[in-house]
């Protein structure tokens, strides 16, 4: 092998960089999917079903913002035909009032920083 030191240094650097997530995975505790506290009243239904809300809540919130603030219409009709008042403070946060245990847990582990709170006031129980 020619230029042994440089080549071996390159190979080691390549292997270390490419396998870094595995090393970090070894050194930290085994990952657990965050358990969120959904709401106090288990009988109440959310505006849409769980699967939809999990995947699409951000898009729904974005649409709600546009509908309420840009079009001035504050009525949302869900898939079942039920009507809801479009409002983060009065509809969403009424039930999901635990910001740290509900919003923050998943957002933190997935490194999501929603810009809800550049206009809205952070709910109580947050930093």
């Amino acid at each position, binding site marked *: 092998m020619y230029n*042994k030191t440089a080549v071996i240094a390159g190979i080691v650097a390549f292997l270390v960089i490419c396998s870094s*997530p595995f090393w970090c*995975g070894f050194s930290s505790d085994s990952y657990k999917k965050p358990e969120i506290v959904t709401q106090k009243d288990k009988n109440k239904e959310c505006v849409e079903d769980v699967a939809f809300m999990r*995947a699409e809540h951000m898009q729904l919130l974005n649409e709600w913002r546009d509908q309420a603030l840009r079009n001035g219409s504050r009525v949302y009709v869900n898939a079942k035909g039920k009507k809801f008042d479009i409002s983060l403070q009065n509809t969403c946060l009424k039930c999901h009032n635990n910001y740290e245990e509900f919003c923050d847990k998943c957002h933190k582990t997935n490194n999501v920083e929603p810009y809800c709170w550049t206009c809205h006031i952070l709910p109580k129980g947050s930093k």
Partner: protein
Amino acid sequence: MLKSLLVVALVAAIAWLGASAGLGSLFGVVLPYVAIAVFLGGVVWRMVYWAKSPVPFAIPTTGGQEKSLDWIKQAKWDCPDTKWGVVKRMILEVFLFRSLFRNMHAEMKPNDAVNGGPRLVYYSSKWLWVFALLFHYCFFLVFFRHFRFFMEPVPACVGFFEMLDGMFQIGAPRFYMTGGLLFCAVLFLLLRRLANPRVRYISLFQDYFPLWLIMGIAGSGICMRYFTKTDITQVKAYIMGLVQFHPISAAGIDPVFFMHVALVSVLLAYFPFSKLTHMAGVFFSPTRNLPCDTRRTRHENPWNPEKNFLTYPEYEDMYREAMADAGLPLDKPLEKKSGE
């Protein structure tokens, strides 16, 4: 061209159908592990193979003047004659793709005012350079952003680049510029091969295949983020399971995710055995990593046979006394023994 598209489409379709049929663990566990092993092993094998190959000639092909006499100006960036100069040229090559900056384009102008007729014009076409830069940097940033799924806690620099990338705060989930630009850049690189007849003539299956593959990867990723959606908290738990070597069930994850993973796995496994190894190869290119000092130092061919000849000084050493006796001229005169 169509054959490579067909292969990529087939991989995507098999993965999508397989995952829909409940074979998620095959496409989501076995395939990625095999692909990563092949990728790491393959690239190391490549590097060792190249490092073992001798370089018979010093071939630092350059576009500038080699270091010569003092009054001839040396092209320092293109034609370095020191190790440090070569390192500088390599850094610029790796990070800024300087050789693509010199992408020569020949064009026949039918009615040239100067010639009063047709004229051949040469110029450096920068489009390839611009889109190659855009493509590579966007791809890197897209890959780097994915570390939010591979690591817990997520490193702060990932958040910083996400913030920059989604700076315009378009929609929710925020639109990432690099994703869109990556797709556009790959599209340009593909259209370049199709639109330019000379490039099209030399393009083969192995030129189109990675482009389609990357397009499929970017497309399925964009699709998952903005259109079809999937529960990313479940995805993160799933990927962390892979990273920490205790895979969890694939239930509850959209088949598009497994299509994305399968395409990435194919790209990784294909990487070491294709032109994509230019990632490692650029460091092993004799035209890039040798200093341009061919007029000053002798490059020894490593496979030269054993020396079986005498140099003149050695010859003279052997026959000095006889030569002195015969009165022949000597480079190194015979030392007179004391007392004679």
